[in-house]
């Protein structure tokens, strides 16, 4: 193996991840903003009216990306929770904690925009069908994780409790995904599938995929910003946080790594 390769494990320490995340946030944030503008332009100006659903289908450009992200973020959150439970790593637990609010927002947007798509298309804002009910349970899982964390004062105990709940809740993700196959659902079947050709015009698909990347980059930027706040909050009083606070927000990697942080509590 090459001896001069980057030691990625260095960034598993909050002190060295903090400045790295700070450098990445503007890139992901601007990428999200630019892609959202392009995606909305494609969705509202370039893409034609749908021959079946008329203009109402244009909700797809926010609904589907938000719904995908709501499920994808849960899986990512569960992945970090599993790492935190298995290896007792601080940063993994903080990443899981940082993703939950963004996941909840994406789930809310998916449910809300779905209701306002369902009303003109199926004649109802809401139905207790499999797809919608399981997505609502996903929202409750996210809110439950946030509430559970706030109910436990010791952050490391909260990490373990939330980690277990997040892993148990993962079973809901395949239920949401396959619900339109398993049950006779009011929700339409998958428009885009990994195995079949998409059942939509390619320009509509392009708009939806651009919006999906925008949602993805938004989620990365916001999660990184939130994990930085969580790091400061939880490692308050440690040498690296003091160094960061003392340097007037001019964060540089050397200040972080020269004085590795130790948790003040515990």
């Amino acid at each position, binding site marked *: 193996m090459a001896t001069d390769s980057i030691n990625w494990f260095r960034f598993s320490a909050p002190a060295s991840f903090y400045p790295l995340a700070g450098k990445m946030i503007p890139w992901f944030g601007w990428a999200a903003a630019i892609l959202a503008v392009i995606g909305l332009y494609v969705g*509202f100006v370039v893409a034609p*009216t749908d021959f079946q659903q*008329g*203009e*109402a289908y*244009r*909700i797809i450009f*926010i*609904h589907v990306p*938000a719904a995908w992200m709501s499920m994808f973020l849960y899986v990512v959150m569960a992945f970090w929770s599993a790492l935190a439970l298995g290896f007792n790593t601080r940063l993994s637990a903080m990443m899981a904690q940082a993703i939950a*609010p*963004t996941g909840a*927002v994406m789930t*809310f*947007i998916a449910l*809300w*925009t779905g209701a*306002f*798509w369902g*009303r*003109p298309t199926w004649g109802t804002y809401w139905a207790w069908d499999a797809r919608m009910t399981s997505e609502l349970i996903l929202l409750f899982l996210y809110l439950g994780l946030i509430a559970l964390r706030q109910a436990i004062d010791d952050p490391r105990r909260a990490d373990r409790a939330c980690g277990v709940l997040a892993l148990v809740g993962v079973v809901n993700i395949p239920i949401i995904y396959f619900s339109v196959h398993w049950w006779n659902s009011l929700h339409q079947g998958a428009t885009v599938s990994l195995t079949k050709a998409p059942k939509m015009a390619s320009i509509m698909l392009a708009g939806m995929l651009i919006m999906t990347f925008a949602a993805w980059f*938004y989620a990365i930027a*916001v999660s990184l*910003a*939130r994990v*930085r*706040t969580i790091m*400061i*909050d939880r490692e*308050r*009083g440690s040498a690296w*946080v*003091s*160094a960061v*606070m*003392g340097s*007037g*927000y001019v964060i540089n990697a050397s200040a972080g790594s020269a004085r590795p942080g130790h948790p003040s509590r515990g």
Partner: protein
Amino acid sequence: MIEFLAMKGYGFYIWSAYGVAALALALELAALRARRRTVTEEARLTSPDAPLDEPGAAQ
């Protein structure tokens, strides 16, 4: 422009969906910013070597 906003009668549904989605994202960003301010202020007060009287420190 009016015609675009009307969305052939679907304007209410489309703009309710997009408007509330935008509001949700804006609230998330505002909450995160407020939380970051609180946390950095608290951390600054507990950091022994941090200058407390630095101008513009509470940003």
